[in-house]
């Protein structure tokens, strides 16, 4: 299909400071990444990456961020991400770093990966959990997500074919 091809970077924001998450906002995040690219790759890099760059999804609770950029220059963005060491908002600086989980061609593949990833995380959490009450709570949430998966499990499987039609910007 004739379209602009993009790359989607699924990243996880890791921070020790919970307040860092608080100030997480797509505008802030976008600015931060842009600045970093400009710092690392210079004006050329900043200009090359600014076309089609966007923060597609952001979850402050889990720290999941989905960045979009053009396929030609995604490596510039990718290589710039490790250089983000702090998040600045309203005069506060919170140290943090980005952990790139996945690089995908469509939003859909990233979402699928995220589902797998989260599920895995939950299981790990369940295994490592020691507290009885918490264990129960986690179990509940795991089953909840799994139940939903069962409901729509078939449909989820069906999405493999739909990637071609997925023309998200």
């Amino acid at each position, binding site marked *: 299909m004739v379209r602009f091809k993009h790359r989607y970077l699924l990243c996880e924001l890791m921070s020790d400071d919970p307040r860092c998450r608080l100030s997480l906002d797509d505008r802030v995040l976008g600015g931060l990444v842009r600045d970093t690219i400009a710092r690392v790759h210079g004006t050329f890099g900043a200009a090359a990456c600014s076309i089609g760059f966007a923060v597609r999804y952001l979850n402050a609770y889990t720290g999941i961020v989905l960045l979009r950029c053009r396929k030609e220059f995604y490596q510039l963005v990718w290589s710039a991400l490790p250089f983000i060491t702090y998040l600045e908002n309203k005069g506060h600086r919170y140290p943090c770093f980005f952990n790139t989980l996945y690089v995908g061609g469509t939003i859909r593949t990233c979402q699928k990966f995220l589902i797998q990833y989260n599920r895995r995380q939950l299981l790990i959490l369940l295994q490592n959990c020691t507290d009885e009450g918490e264990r129960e*709570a986690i179990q509940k949430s795991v089953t909840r997500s799994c139940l939903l998966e069962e409901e729509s499990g078939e449909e989820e499987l069906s999405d493999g074919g739909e990637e071609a039609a997925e023309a998200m910007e």
Partner: protein
Amino acid sequence: MSNAKERKHAKKMRNQPTNVTLSSGFAADRGGKHHNGGGKPFPAQKHELHSGTSRQRQTKITPHSLPEPDGNEQSSSKVMFRKKGGWKAGPEGTAQEIPKYITASTFAQARAAEISAMLKAVTQKSSNSLVFQTLPRHMRRRAMSHNVKRLPRRLQEIAQKEAEKAVHQKKEHSKNKCHKARRCHINRMLEFNRRQRKNIWLETHIWHAKRFHMVKRWGYCLGERPTVKSHRACYRAMTHRCLLQDLSYYCCLELKGKEEEILQALSQMCSIDTGLTFAAVHCLSGKRQGRLVLYRANKYPRELLGPVTFIWKSQRTPGDTLGIRQLWIWLHPTLKQDILEELKAVCQCTDPFKSAICIPDSLLVSSQEKSQTELPDEKIGKKRKRKDDGENAKPIKKVIGDGTRDPCLPYSWISPATGIIINDLTMEMNRFRLIGPLSTSILTEALKTASVHTGEEDTEKIPHCWWSEACKNPDSVSLHHRQQAIFELLGGIASPAEIPAGTILGLTVGDPRINLPQKKFKALTNPEKCQDKESIRQLLLEGVPVECAHSFIWNQDICKSVTENKISDQDLNRMRSELLVPGSQLILGPHESKIPVLLIQQPGKVTGEDRRGWGSGWDVLLPKGWGMAFWIPFIYRGARVGGLKETVVHSQYKRSPNIPGDFPDCPAGILFAEEQAKNLLEKYKRRPPAKRPNYVKLGTLAPFCCPWEQLTQDWESRVQAHEDSSEASSPNGKESDLRRHEVPYTSTSEKTSQPSDELGTSRNHPGEPEEVMDTECQGQAGPERVVGQEVSENHVASTGGQLCVLRSRILLKQLSAWCGPSSENSRAAWRAPSRGQQGLTREACLSILGRFPRALVWVSLSLLRKGSPEPHTMICIPTEEDFLQLHKDRHCCGPQESKHSDLFKSKILKQKEKKKKEKRQTRGCAASEGLAGRDPPARQGALTQGLWSGPLPRVTSHCSRVLLGFVTQGDFSMAAGCGEALGFVSLTGLLNMLCNQPAAQRGLVLLRPPTSLQYRFARIAIEV
């Protein structure tokens, strides 16, 4: 970003999870919870989840107003959240201290929420494409679009939903039977019979429906034109080979009674003025077919009913001594109702007549009989059928003839006084028309005269007892042999035009299916086959003798038995397959059907000088039920089939009026014109105003219909006005007498408006023909004119100024002589044969005008140079300058009409604005005001941009050239090689024009199509 773009984006993103930031975290959490199956719908959730932009705004506001949502938040998860005091403490985080410990449950919950949100996004289809379009090419299958099961199973559910949506849009298709059941013979027959109930099907309907564009017209389903591109091919077939048409939709009315009685009754309906009547010698003997136009009783020349053809049954028939004659009147279905009513009135046939011959009865009887005879077949059919079909098994029979007929209505009427019986024989016979020079050879190839029964075997078991009866009579046998001889002679004739017009030949032929050729081929004339030149010459000279016109088709009982005893195609094919030598001739012997047919020669072009006899051919009359049995053999001999369009083309090239479009004075013609105007207007309105011609600017007042009434009235008042003005301006007697005639004519042609000016011009340029005439007529002109006027007034008073079409042959001949170009030499030449005719004089014109004050004349026009006219083209009178220009430059195309201004455009604009304003007002105001404001928009509905609205102004003087008439048929004529048109002009206008034109250029007119400003020269001709 434009609004539409935004919407599109929103649509695309509707299924995507939105950002979850801490400040608005509750919402997301709530949303997530909802998805998790918490089942607690929150009112705020919906709009929060919807668009990212609104979310953005909210994030900005919420940090300050955070406690409030907190307060009314009773979500369980929230409560739990708070109690535990998770590591991310919600919106109050800024105010709170850093939590002391981290709980895994919140962490897990956040993950779970995200999973569910993502799952939802992933599972939903986001694009607009259909499901199967998402599959890669190699996995697609042809039937996927309608058969869900062709899709991979994982997609079937979604596809099902999609299909349901689409099904509602599609037409509901009855599926009470499967395809196989629907195709089964009995069910198909049922279905066909059902579909024939509304519109009559011809017997060749199925054949036509596969190859033609079908239209429902006049209560029939008729083929309009072939689906293949064949305009030129059909023309070639007409000219060089053979074109076949199914004219079975023509109606036949039968009159039975004493000859004198019928003639007396019918003489009221026709006039000797228009040509030969029912009493013409050749026709009355039954030798020829006649054609005439019928009027309402004693109303000639007004109230036309329509043109008909008729045949008398030949007198010399065995057992017809009482003087009872049979007359068939064939007419177009649109005219049938009027003519039938009038015939009944004229013959005083009021009582419905029931007898053995009566058609509805015979129909019923025959159907019952047939069902009895075909009992074994029926039983076989029943076995296969389902039970619910059992009840209606009996009426399953192919409908032959008129399927729409109501058996309760009478189709036969008798007059108690005169004993005349009128039968409606519509659809009781098939009528095929073969046009073209090869039609005779096709007929002789396809039809073989029936073999005479030797009479040894007993006649009881043979179904065709009528034929064996006839064979016992030596008279009829000898007659049959004579007919056979003449029919064989026909094969040696090059073209049917060589035979006298309207010749009738009766025949009894064998089953034409038996000698059907293996392959389609083109039958050619074979002059070597017929060596008997002498008898051919005699045939051409004398025509077919009267006795040979006899045919058994006149006898209803025989026709019925022939229809019933037809061997079905299936049986015939079975017998053929049982032949010992495959492909050899099938010999049925006495079991072969004998079919009485009637061949009628159709004269082609009978008027005019050129191409005489073009388009001549044969009409074949067959008893019903035998249509397809004859149709296929004709086609296998190389006949090409045409539809209604070819009929129109045929009549146009023949320069004969087409029924019913070219009879503007008969009810059917008026109806036709109205319908045509409606259709054209609809078609016109479908285009946007910028993409359609603006007829107001083009000066076309009536682009979709021809306002005959107004045209004739305008011409009448025009002539009168000029006469009055001239009389008023010149008091002295003798001079006024002179001018009275000169002035109107010259002034009309020059189109000057001031009377003084007219006088001057008339004195200055007296046309040369006028000079001659006036010297002649000075004396008598005065009184005669007065008489003429009186007569005309009487006519107008008596008929209410109705228009009529001039059909008097004498007057038409005179007019046609006047119309020709007349240089001195040629004038003498063409005058010589017609000594008795008057010259083009004033008094002659006036006497004609007196008798026909508002008459139209049928004219044919051929263009001098370029241009192909179309229907509704205007016929105009050229001015003197135009002639000068034509004289100077032989290659000039003609004058141009200057562009008119659109008076209505501003009006339309104003009304549009007004409407808008009113809309605004009514929106604000109460209903009472809206009621008042409703009137103007209704009026505005009539206004269409580009069309003249309201009553038409004077049609004749609207453009720079004076309007004379309109074209009803026009196209490039392949027969003549130039544009040709047929139409009507006002008689008053025509005479006016002829008087004023110089002799050398007499008969030249200008044609202007409705969509063009260009006038083109054409020559007018009246062909009688």
